[in-house]
C-alpha cells in the first residue's frame, strides 16, 4: 500500500514562537474521544483559537490563511508531552504540511512523519531568522533535506527510513509485513 510521495513542499509560513508547545495545546484532551480519522481542524490549537463559548479569539492563528500558509515555524521542543497521534492529525487537518523547529519531541516527530507531516529540525541561527518573519515563502526539499526561504537556507536530517517512506510513498507496515518470516523465526527461537 503506497501513499502519495512527498518530495518537496513550497508554501507560505506562519509562526508559533513559544518553546515547549505541548500536545495538550495542539489538541486538548477532550477532543481525543474520536474513534475515526479526520475532522480535527477545529480542535487544532482549539483553546488558543476559540473562547469557551466557541467564538474566535484574536489569536494570530485565526489570521492564518490555511490555504496558503501551510508551513509552521515553531519554537524549540515542539510537540512535547503525550503520544497522541491526534496532534499531527489535527495539524494536518488544519492544513499544515511541514513543521520547522530547532527540536521536536521524539514521539511527536515519529507520529508526524507517519502522517505526511514533515518535521525539519534546523540549526538555531536559521531557526531564529525564520521565527522572526511571518508569511515567508518557504521550500522544504525532502529529497535533499534542505530549507530555502529567500536568503535563509538550512539543512535538516530525517531518519533515513522515514525520508524514504516520504519521498517514495512507502508504507512502513507493508515493509514490516515483508519481514514476517524473520519475525516468525524470532518467535520460534525465543519461545518460552
Amino acid at each position, binding site marked *: *500500500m503506497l501513499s502519495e510521495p512527498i518530495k518537496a513542499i513550497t508554501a507560505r509560513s506562519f509562526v508559533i514562537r*513559544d*518553546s*515547549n508547545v*505541548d500536545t*495538550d*495545546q495542539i489538541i*486538548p*484532551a*477532550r477532543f*481525543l*474521544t*474520536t*474513534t*475515526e*480519522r479526520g475532522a480535527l481542524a477545529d480542535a487544532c490549537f482549539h*483553546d488558543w483559537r476559540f473562547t*469557551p463559548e466557541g467564538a474566535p479569539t484574536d489569536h494570530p492563528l485565526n489570521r492564518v490563511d490555511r490555504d496558503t500558509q501551510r508551513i509552521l515555524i515553531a519554537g*524549540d*521542543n515542539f510537540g*512535547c*508531552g*503525550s*503520544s*497522541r*497521534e491526534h496532534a499531527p492529525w489535527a495539524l494536518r487537518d488544519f492544513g499544515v504540511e511541514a513543521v520547522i523547529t530547532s*527540536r521536536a*519531541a*521524539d*514521539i511527536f516527530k*515519529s*507520529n508526524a512523519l*507517519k*502522517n505526511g507531516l514533515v518535521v525539519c529540525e534546523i540549526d538555531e541561527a536559521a531557526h531564529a531568522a525564520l521565527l522572526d518573519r511571518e508569511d515567508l515563502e518557504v521550500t522544504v526539499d525532502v529529497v535533499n533535506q534542505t530549507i530555502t526561504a529567500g536568503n535563509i537556507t538550512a539543512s535538516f536530517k530525517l*531518519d*533515513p*527510513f522515514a525520508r*524514504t517512506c516520504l519521498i517514495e510513498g512507502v508504507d*512502513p*507496515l507493508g*515493509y*514490516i*509485513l515483508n*519481514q*514476517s518470516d*524473520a*519475525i516468525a523465526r*524470532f*518467535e520460534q*527461537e*525465543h519461545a518460552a
Partner: protein
Amino acid sequence: MKTPSPSDTSPKTLFEKVWDLHLIEPETEAAPALVYVDLHLIHEVTSPQAFTALEERGLKVRRPDRVFGTLDHSTPTTPRTPGAKPIYINAAAKKQVETLEDNCRRHGIRLAGWDSPERGIVHVIGPELGLTQPGMTIVCGDSHTSTHGAFGALAFGIGTTEVGHVLATQSLLQSKPKTMRVTVDGRLPHGVGGKDLILAIIAELGAGGAAGHVIEYAGAAIEALSMEERMTVCNMSIEAGARAGMIAPDATTFAWLEGRKHAPKGAAWEAAKSRWAGLKSDPDAVFDAEVRLDGSKLAPMVTWGDSPDMAAPIDASVPRAPEGPAAEALSYMGFKAGEALMGETIDAVFIGSCTNARLSDLREAAAVIAGRHVKQGVRMLVVPGSEEVKRQAEAEGLDAIFRTAGAEWREPGCSMCIAMNGDTGLAGERIVSTSNRNFAGRQGRGVRTILASPATAAASAIAGAIADPRRILEASHAQ
C-alpha cells in the same frame, strides 16, 4: 530469551542488553532496527483507528496473547453501586469504550473491562498483574509507558499508527536511542520521596533535555526507593523528553513481583530471577550522557509554571526576575515574581494518576490527612489507580480517612490527570495534583496545575495553600 553470543563481550548498558535481546533485524543505514514487542498494552483512546487500519487491510492481530487492554482514560470515576452501568461524559466517550470492548472481543484480546476486578490505569495494572516483567519490551499508545521501566523493562509510548504495526506484526521499527545515566547519590532526607526526586531531575534536565535518550536511573538513592517510587520516577521520564526510563531490577523488584498473577511461578520463577539478575549495566559500560545529583540535598518539590521542568523546592520562591516563558508561566499561574511558593492559596487537590495512585501513594496522603480536615472551600479528589488499589485501600480504611477529612473517594481511572472524562477543574483554579503534567489547560481550560507528591498534596489540602508535609508529619510524630 536468547543468550547473547559469547563473542559479544563489550560492556553494555542495561538498555543495550534489553535492546539486543529483542532485535529481529539490526539497524542498517537504510532502515531502523526491527524490535520484537513482548507486551502490548492498549486502552480506548489511542487504539480505535489502529484496529480500523488493520481491518481495512484484512490483517489479523498477530499475537493476541501478548496484548492486554484496559479502560481508563474516558471512563467516569463518580462513585457507583456494584453492577451499575457507567455514565459517560458524552456519547463519544461511551462509543470509544464500546469500540475497544468490541475490538478486544473480535480479536481475542484480554480486556480488563468495566466490571473486571483487574481494571485500572494501564500503567498501574500492568505491574500489579505481573504482566510487566524485567527485561521485557513493552509498548502502549501512551507516553507514560515509561513507568514499566522501573522493572528493568524497555518500555515506551507509541502513536496510533505504531499501535497498528504492533497489533499486526508484534514488532516495531525503531532507531536505536542514545543512553543517559542519571546517578543520584546519597540518601533522600525524611519526607522527600520519589515524586520530589523526579521533579528535581526534570528541573535539572529541562523539558526536552533527555530527548532521543533512554535514561537509566542509578545510584544509592535510586536503589533505596520502593518499587512504587521507582515507577513514579520512570513514569515522568517523558517529562524530560526521554524515550524511556529504566532501573536495574534487584531484590526490591523481585520481592514486589513474586506471586503476582502473571509472574512466573515455582521453578520458572527461580529461572527468571537468575536471568533477570544479569539485567544491569556492566561496570565499564559507556553512556552517551551522564548526569549526577546529590539526593541528600533535596526537599519536597512543587511546580510553579506550566511545564514540568518549572519545579522548585517547596521552601523556595518563584523566579524574581522572570523573562519570556517564565514570565508567561507566572502570569498563567497567577503568581507574582519573587513570591514564596508556600502559602499560595489553592482551590483543589487531586490525588491520582499513573504517577501517584498506587496503594503506597494513598497511604502517604492518608498519613498526612488522618485526623485533619480539608480546608473549607477546597475540593479534594482521591482516585485510586486500579480496582485492586481501591480494594486494598478500603480494606485498610484509607477511604474512610479521606472521606472523614472531607475528600471525595472515587472509582479508578485517569480522571483529572488528563481531564477527558469530565473530571476537570474550573478556569482560574489552582489544583495541587499528584499527576505528571502541569501544561496550561491540562486539567481543564484555564486551570492552574501545581505538581507535587501525595504528601505535599494532602498537606496543601489541609492548609488550603501550598504546604510542606514535613511540618505536619513532624507534628504527628511529636504527639
